[in-house]
């Protein structure tokens, strides 16, 4: 009487760096590369969000394609010949990182970005290094937004919108070089639709969005990840069982994240899980 058994996945044969590989027919090129332990740089891509194709760092060569192809969103096809290690790809990625360094402050970019920049021998001064000049937006006690560091990867928009929170408090405003992430009519965050789940901060790869607790400690020069421990536990504010990663420095919680690979949260939390720890340290 029970019907539901999943159909067998359809497989396709492809060539990856001149080697024959069998892959799921619905896999992306990036999925296949990672399954083959072949690392590919990404910045806008995140496993828990839909690919947005803005950063172009994951580009690879596909035989027969005039332009480079973003690995994060392109689905493999039978007979596809893919290269990830050509000079053309390395040039493209290095130049892209150099463009980013000239238009954005990458000083707090995630480890992945910094590692790739070093691997590709990126010269951040090639096009003139970006000089931060925009005021950091501090409009409440929980968030800061420093758009000098924004690479327009769109992760925050996806996490606020259809891929997780479905609140739609932020989106891209403007066009071309003057495009930016904004609330509706650029109102302050407290006046916007924002519900302070922190999921935009959780997915930001460059430190443009940051918990104010971390920002304040960085400003005071007391933020020290070398002295921090991360302990995974369960949120106490409802019965869903969200996994919390408590970042603790000197017996104080300084930041709360959630594991991207845990099935309950997929890295996302609500305002209570993200910030409700305050009472633990009121009088410590």
């Amino acid at each position, binding site marked *: *009487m029970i019907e539901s058994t999943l159909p067998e996945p359809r497989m396709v044969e492809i060539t990856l760096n001149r080697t024959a590989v069998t892959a799921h027919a619905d896999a992306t090129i990036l999925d296949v590369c990672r399954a083959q332990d072949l690392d590919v740089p990404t910045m806008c891509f995140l496993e828990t969000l839909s690919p947005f194709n803005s950063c172009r760092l994951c580009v690879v060569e596909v035989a027969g394609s005039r332009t480079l192809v973003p690995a994060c969103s392109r689905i493999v096809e039978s007979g596809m010949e893919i290269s990830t290690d050509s000079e053309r790809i390395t040039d493209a990625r290095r130049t892209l990182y150099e463009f980013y360094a000239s238009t954005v402050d990458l000083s707090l970019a995630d480890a992945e970005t910094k590692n790739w920049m070093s691997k590709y021998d990126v010269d951040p001064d090639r096009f003139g290094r970006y000089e931060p000049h925009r005021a950091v937006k501090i409009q409440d006690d929980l968030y800061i937004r420093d758009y000098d560091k924004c690479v327009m990867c769109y992760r925050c928009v996806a996490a606020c919108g259809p891929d997780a929170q479905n609140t739609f408090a932020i989106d891209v405003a403007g066009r071309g070089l003057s495009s930016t992430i904004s609330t509706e009519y650029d109102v302050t965050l407290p006046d916007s639709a924002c519900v302070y789940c922190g999921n935009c901060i959780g997915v930001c790869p460059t430190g443009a969005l940051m918990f104010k607790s971390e920002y304040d400690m960085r400003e005071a020069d007391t933020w020290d990840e070398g002295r921090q421990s991360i302990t995974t536990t369960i949120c106490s504010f409802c019965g869903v069982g969200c*996994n919390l990663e408590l970042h603790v420095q000197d017996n104080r*919680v300084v930041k709360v994240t959630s594991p991207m690979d845990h*099935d309950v949260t997929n890295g996302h939390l609500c305002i*209570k899980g993200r910030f*409700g*720890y305050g009472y633990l340290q009121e009088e410590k």
Partner: protein
Amino acid sequence: MLGAGGGTSSYKEMETTDLIVLWGSNARNAHPIFFHRITKGIRNGAKMYTVDPRRSESAEWADTWLGIDVGSDIALSNTVAREIIHAGLVNAEFIQHSTSGFDAYAESVETWTLERGEEITGVPAEAIRALAHDYAKAPTAQLCWTLGITEHATGTDNVLSLINLALLTGHVGRWGSGLVPIRGQNNVQGGGDMGALPNKFPGFQDVTDRNARAKFEAAWDSPVPAEPGWHIAEMIDAMDLGELTAMYVIGENPAQSEADVSRAIRLLDGLDHLVVQDIFLTKTAQMADVVFPAAAGWAETDGTVTSSERRVQRVRKALDPPGEAKDDNEIITMLANALGHDWEPRDAEAIWDELRSLSPMHAGMSYERLDALGGLQWPCPDDDHPGTPFLHGWLWEETLPREPAPFSIVEWMPPIDPLDDDFPIRLTTGRRLDSYNTGVQSGGYRSPIRADVVIDMTKEQAEDLGVEEREVVRVSSRRGSVEAPVRIVDGLRRGLVFMAFHAPDEVDVNQLTIDDWDPKSGTAEFKATAVRIESL
């Protein structure tokens, strides 16, 4: 339910189910990460109905909102049932094979015509009919609820009436179809799992079962009472009768959280001895003879909690507790030894391993496996068992391994606190997104979206009363009165007002609520209070 004290489904099923019914739940605010699954399901094509007196933030996501009158849930579910039966939409094969008591149940709902349902619930007959037909016809459907169903004097019957709907249609025991109560606290489910119920041992084994008792008596080397104990509402009544004179309260704040809180305070005050173990000096702790400062159970101690999908997960110590605060486990051990026992200190894992040896449904959940697998869903009877994503698959087996699932005959009863000329308005209470229960925990951070304490009502209601937005009004029930400013909102209607209960030090909403409780669950009727609203 159906003999197991937990929801039947996994959250993930919400993503691929065909129909979601959210009944008495504002999960968008109270369970936001569960609601992420609902939005995924909706994006994948699921249709959603919400049943709620308020057009809540969750209802805004629904295809159809059924704006039920407070406390008419059974009237609605019985009407839905009759419509499913009369439209010939029951799953006859499932009913015949896997359930019992259908004929008597069908007869019991026979008077619940769509017209009568509309009259009692305030929901248009056409909307009731649509819910009935869509639920019955959906290939898979998840029926979810929270405290809007259970915080009534008929809370248990409300739940049974929903289970009936699943049995009528076969929407239980399959991937994608289930009955989903979402719990309000991180270990409500785990408290039940561990036997923190008046009639159960760990693993939902019955204290009245001689064999179960013998097992626990042998393990604990101590006799165990054969009679079930009291639940909280019975304790309150026993205090009133002078039968309960001493109380040891761990991690609860009844002086603010109980319904008809003035009475609760008076009774707590009249105890011979009150011991409170808490992470805060709560209002209840301030009344205590002895206070044991405790460590926060999710960040300052090790242990496990069980979520609403029956997933047991580890909580881990990240911080040293402040001052003299200690782990609950350590306090209880010290107390036992002070009472003349000789308990060795044991860590959380040793206690958990004892539990695993006594509770078959937890037996396969070693700390090692919980760590490696990100938790396990019970039942998990041995070390090779993968856990159980959904319950009651047995209902679909060709030969049933146990008695078929019974329909329950449930009668609708109006709320205990009646509306009349003196108290003509229905007050219902609930949570806001950024706050939690009596606010002692969630008050510890500065939320940019925290609403002031207000009484929410529609523009029409305010005009009827002749009050203005932000005007402070007096709200009185048969038990007490509070003052709060008016906030004009959409989503309510004439005769229905709403208050959150997160700031009892400012506005003690539970002065108003009624403590008549469900004799089957011990839960008070927080959701239905008759009030009068006056200008000052």
